[in-house]
């Protein structure tokens, strides 16, 4: 089932001679259980693409269809409750974990659940399940500062999964980790996509980390470019 479809998406900053075309004619499709990578060097528009998909930034043109509903057309957001959609249907993973430093690992995962008003017992059970799934239950009551980088990232992933998000957006999730830990995180994401049927888009510049991804998009100067062969053997789209 298709979770996200992006058609002809563009984003232009400024106007006149200051105009910058950050994204141009972006087409993208992700289904549940799919793991998609967007590869590109710094400044290619990867993060802008994530911001547009996650309803944080207004695109300049194009269409976004999310979970079967057109949420953005050329005239703007189609009456969608942006914040509600973000907290109920989209999970975020960041390069620097971005855990709330004054909340324990357990509370960080609990936060999205409390934002949607989950019952306490249900939420606590869900948090326990997720922390066990991420093999970090024994660190549940530790503050982020007392966790290693890999542990923090696993807590961040658990937080992204808390509300059973249909779409998970990961911005350079391995950038702050060494290769071994980075590889483990990517394995985890693959497992999540397969087992939990979440659609996952990972933005990265590290080609070593996208082994086994279903689709890889190459972004250059705000456009997807076709490549003869995917760097890891994955299907390459343009």
């Amino acid at each position, binding site marked *: 089932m298709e979770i996200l479809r992006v058609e002809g998406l563009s984003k232009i900053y400024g106007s006149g001679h200051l105009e910058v075309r950050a994204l141009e004619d972006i087409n993208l499709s992700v289904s549940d259980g799919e793991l998609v990578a967007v590869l590109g060097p710094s400044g290619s528009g990867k993060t802008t693409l994530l911001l547009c998909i996650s309803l944080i930034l207004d695109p300049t043109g194009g269409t976004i269809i999310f979970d079967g509903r057109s949420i953005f057309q050329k005239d703007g957001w189609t009456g969608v409750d942006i914040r509600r959609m973000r907290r109920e249907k989209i999970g975020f993973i960041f390069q*620097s974990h971005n855990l709330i430093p004054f*909340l324990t690992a357990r509370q960080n995962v*609990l936060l999205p659940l409390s934002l949607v008003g989950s019952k306490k017992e249900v939420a606590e059970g869900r948090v326990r399940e997720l922390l066990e799934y991420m093999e970090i239950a024994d660190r549940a009551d530790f503050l982020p500062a007392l966790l290693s980088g890999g542990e923090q990232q696993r807590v961040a992933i658990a937080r992204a999964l808390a509300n059973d998000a249909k779409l998970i957006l990961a911005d350079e999730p391995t950038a702050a980790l060494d290769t071994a830990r980075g590889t483990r995180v990517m394995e985890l994401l693959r497992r999540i996509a397969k087992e939990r049927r979440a659609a996952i888009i990972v933005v990265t510049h590290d080609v070593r980390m996208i082994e086994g991804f279903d689709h890889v998009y190459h972004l250059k100067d705000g456009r997807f470019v076709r490549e003869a062969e995917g760097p890891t053997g994955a299907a390459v789209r343009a």
Partner: protein
Amino acid sequence: MDLAANDLRLHRGRFMATVVGVGLLFTIVLAMNGLYRGNIQEGLALIRSVNPDLWVVERYRGGPFNEQSTMPEAYHYNVKAISGVERASPFIYYAVERQVKGRNRHFSIVGFDIFEGVGGPQKIYAGRNIARAHYEMVAHPKLGVKVGDVVTLGLHDYTVVGLTKEAVSTDGEALVWLSLPDAQEVLYQKDNEEIRAQRESLLRDLDKQTYLSQGQAEKLSASLPPDTHIINAVLVRLTPGADHAEAAGEIKNWLYLSAFTTGEEVQLMLQGRLSSMSKQLLLFRTLLLIISVVVLSLVVYTFTMEKIRSIAVMKLIGAPNGVVIRMVLEESLLLTIAAFLLGVLIIQNTYQLFPRTILRVPADDIVTFLIAVAGGIFASILGLWEALKTEPALALGT
């Protein structure tokens, strides 16, 4: 989940330091509230304690407390002759500094007619009231004396026969009650040597008068003793049913004196002598409250700016503004309330150590608390402003 409490728990060192700092500021504010109340209470204590129907003082004067008023003692006979006056009692009040039990003490003396009774202490908690016309005194314990002690004032010794906490002087110092002639003597009776010097001076002046012989001048100078029969006010009790305004009007018109009811006397003090102190204290309290709010603002702003990225993350994962507002506001209010409670705790345990009376009034605490809470809300505005304008995109580092 209480985000603010969790944040403050992580930063408990800074939280405690802020609470102590602002708490001490609140202590001073609360102390000044009490000082203001104490200033009023002490300033009016004697007026309220004496509480005659009318205070008769020198014409055009607002005496005897708000400003000086003097008149011949015999005037109280004139006042008594006014219709509606049941009792008219001479009264004298003045501040002195004397040695009491080897220490310099600043206190005020009240002289009253012990037979008329008006103006004397009503509630003696140790010993008895003055019963003899001379050489007995009733004192406030602030003077540092006890019943049976002997205190030398001027030329004579006075025995402490009773103690009362009924009133203090308008400056918050101890009060000493003496019989009227004793009080007049302490105030006006000069040292014998000084009397001799004055007589000689008078004799030299009289010698210059050609119509007086040497013998006449000597007799005259010796027969002019210093006049001690001066009073500050006449305290009036009216007959039941007598009209205060009417009696006061007659005294003003016929005796060329001023007459005030106790209520008017209170107003004279509030609008005169006590008002500048009250304004001063109000200004200090306002300044301290402003300083407290500024300190709280800076702390809340710093707390907010330190977690601006966390706020961006919260917004990114869909937290409504209400969650962010609640967190910032709650931190500000927790700081304010904790600091205020510390202030109350400190002042409640130390107010008796202050040299001036700190009168604790629950209503003052409640009003100050409400102002502090309003200040705490105001203090969070800067932090809220920064928090609300934070873009969720900041979480992604853009």
